């Protein structure tokens, strides 16, 4: 009984079956023998005679998940991530809250992000008066103003319109905004996590209003939310008639409350705050509305003392996500082949090129894009690198198809200064030390 092999266990099973009809007393002894054999087998059945130190105990020993039943399918009717993934989560910091956690922001863990779709529970969350919980039965969308026919829709009626599905990022124009005057966060999640990306489904507004007789003099559209802050923004009609959408789904399911359930505006490539959540009203007008979030905030103050208003698009941008401060190269050995990868995006078009530098921007080389390359969408880039264990100043630079090139910090601040708060898209540099530690630095000439 001390060394039980797989064969001997099977033999015992067979013997046990053959003797089923025999006396219960004999049966009892045989069963007992099987059970005790199994008990021993659970730890040693696959064990060779001798374990060596190099043998991986994760392989040699059976694991609990292989020797017990898993969860029944009745558990978690709506699935949740593995409990081992609890650190892949949104995070907050008091510095970025407007006094409390209601008019505030939580950052997306882009260091853990794979591909170009952010899981719905990890999508960054910015609201101006808390996350509203709207009862879909009492949801109404009102479209009025300079139209021949105003329209009021319930949610079910809205969802009867023909839908399109598009992949777009959403970025807060304050992404990277705390770092105009120098690096502050040794973290990609906090340096660049005010953005996420999803596949959105809804109706193009040009299809929705095709029957409503938009008047010629209508130049602007107010989009207003029904949340605590009644967040509103003025949108030029030209965008409305191009690719603007009203969306109700995100990655195949209803919008999350944090993303404006049941309905939000989607203006591909434009500032996150323009993609008004909990959307209740669209009003067409001749003149702009001067909403609070397009005057007091979300305006870019330049050194001339004049502030840029109605600065809609997020300009071409990129960042290396691997390595990054959270995901350093401290485990690499000299000579290891490693993939450098990252995200590039532009609200003004489609990513055309990404270049990377190892010396802080003296010399650059073009790298591969990978995966889907879509307009106004995150785009992955990739470069295979032979790790040498020497210090690097690693950075990426993106170019889009509308001719915009991601600027250096010097190039950007020369035009807009350091008090802009919003629309910071200059090149992000990681300092990689000889130990593989990664630090957020700024490179200035």
């Amino acid at each position, binding site marked *: 009984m001390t060394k039980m092999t797989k064969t001997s266990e099977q033999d015992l099973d067979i013997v046990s079956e053959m003797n089923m009809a025999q006396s219960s007393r004999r049966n009892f002894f045989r069963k007992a023998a099987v059970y005790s054999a199994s008990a021993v087998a659970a730890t040693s059945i696959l064990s060779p005679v001798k374990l060596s130190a190099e043998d991986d105990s994760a392989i040699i020993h059976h694991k609990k998940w292989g020797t017990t039943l898993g969860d029944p399918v009745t558990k978690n009717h709506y699935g949740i991530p593995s409990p081992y*993934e609890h*650190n892949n989560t949104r995070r907050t*910091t008091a*510095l970025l*809250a407007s*006094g*409390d956690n*209601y008019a505030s922001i939580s950052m997306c863990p882009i260091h853990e992000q794979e591909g170009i779709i952010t899981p719905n529970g990890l999508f960054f969350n910015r609201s101006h008066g808390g996350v509203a919980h709207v009862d879909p039965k009492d949801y109404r969308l*009102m479209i009025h103003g300079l139209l021949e*026919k*105003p329209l*009021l*829709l319930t949610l079910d*009626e*809205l969802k*009867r319109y023909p839908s*399109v599905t598009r992949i777009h990022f959403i970025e807060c124009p304050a992404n990277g905004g*705390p770092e105009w005057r*120098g*690096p*502050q*966060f040794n973290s990609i999640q*906090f340096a660049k996590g005010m953005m996420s990306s999803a596949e959105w489904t809804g109706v193009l507004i040009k*299809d929705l209003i*095709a029957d409503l007789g938009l008047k010629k003099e209508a*130049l602007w559209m107010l989009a207003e939310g029904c949340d605590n802050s*009644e967040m509103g923004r003025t949108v030029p009609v*030209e965008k409305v008639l191009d690719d603007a959408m009203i969306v109700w789904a995100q990655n195949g399911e209803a919008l999350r409350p944090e993303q404006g359930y049941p309905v939000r505006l989607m203006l591909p490539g434009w500032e996150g705050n323009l993609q008004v959540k909990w959307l209740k009203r669209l*009003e067409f007008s001749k*003149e702009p509305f001067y*909403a*609070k979030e397009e005057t*007091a905030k979300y*305006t870019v*103050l330049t050194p*001339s*003392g*004049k*502030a*840029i*208003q*109605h600065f*809609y*698009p997020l*300009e071409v941008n990129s960042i290396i996500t691997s390595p990054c401060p*959270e995901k350093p190269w401290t485990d690499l050995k000299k000579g290891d082949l490693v993939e450098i990868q990252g995200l590039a995006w532009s609200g*003004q078009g489609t990513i055309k090129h990404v270049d990377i530098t190892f010396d*802080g921007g003296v*010399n650059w080389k*073009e790298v591969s894009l990978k995966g889907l390359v879509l307009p106004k969408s995150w785009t992955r880039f990739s470069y295979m690198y032979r790790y040498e264990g020497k210090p690097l100043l690693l950075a990426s630079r993106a170019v889009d*198809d*509308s001719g915009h090139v991601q*600027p250096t910090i010097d190039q*950007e*601040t020369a*035009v807009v200064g*350091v008090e802009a708060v919003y629309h910071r898209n200059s090149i992000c540099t990681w300092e990689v030390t000889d130990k593989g530690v990664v*630090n957020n*630095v700024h490179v200035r*000439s």
Partner: protein
Amino acid sequence: MFMLDHKKIISTAMIASAIFFGTAHAGEQAIDGGAIYKVKDGMYTSYAVNTQDKKDFKYGKVPSKTEIAAWDIDVMPDGTGLPEGKGSVERGDELYEVKCGMCHGDFGSGGQGSRSTYPTLSVGSASTETLTNQRNVPDADGPKRAIGTYWPQASTLFWYIQSGMPFPHPKSLSNDDTYALVAYILSINEIEIDGETLDDEYVLDREKFLKIKMPNVDGFIPNIDGPEGPANVKKFLNDPKNYGNGTRCMKDCIDPKVNIVRIKVEINAFEPPMSVERTMKEEKVTGKVHPGQKLYEASCSVCHATDAMGAPNLGNKDAWASVLEKGIDKVYANGINGINAMPPKGGAIDLTEAQFKSAVDYMIKNSK
């Protein structure tokens, strides 16, 4: 020879513009300075498209005039949407003390201490001269962006106060109260209307409101007003020199002796703390939820989560011990009637007395 050069110049210019607007629709400019994409052969970029007619939908109904009026409460710079009403600076001051000061500070000076990120409403002056300040050298003063120094239109103030404020209980101010608060805020920003200083007795009404000229009205580019507004925006955003553009240099782009700026004071107070470990989370012991917890979170935490305006904050044993010296009945009564910066029931007038007490009990229980 001249012809040849001329041609060369033209073709160079064309190449430049083709590069700049190098999209499917060269020459056509998007309002945001970006590329324009059109449906072609059933495809919109990489997306396939159903190109059947999408018109003649009969869903929904025409909203009634009353329904439109109920929601169409925005106020535009020309006065569209501005209701009749009136309020004095003095009345505004009283309202401000009760409903606004706990977050925005005395005289709109902004949140203090742990609430220092609450917006500053006034820097005590309507001068726009600090807006050219740049903090690009140590100890430099930054630009002061408050209502008087920065906001271009007073209409925004009326609209936003009435629809979005007070923060925990928006849409609760009457037209008269909103006029009074606007008058008070303009007065602390030292803004004059039609040459008149806004002293305590000053009464703001619709007629006077329409005469307000904000000091920074011309402080914004591009000009968005009038029939050329969108065209101005398009022109502005189509010139990246207005907001900065890079150059695609590949070799010897900058001096190899680069200046590396490192983090001086690292900010890493994150919630939850940063970690990329993949280990099982320790189970939290979860007890029964106190009936006052939800009420606290909805109505009290805006002030009591921190020490806003002297509000004893949740978990502060000393602050609550000293409050409780008066006895629990006095604590209830003070809260229900209001005390110091705290309005009656903290402004949560909808709470019953029992609910209010339950929220207080929750705070006390969690501050022992």
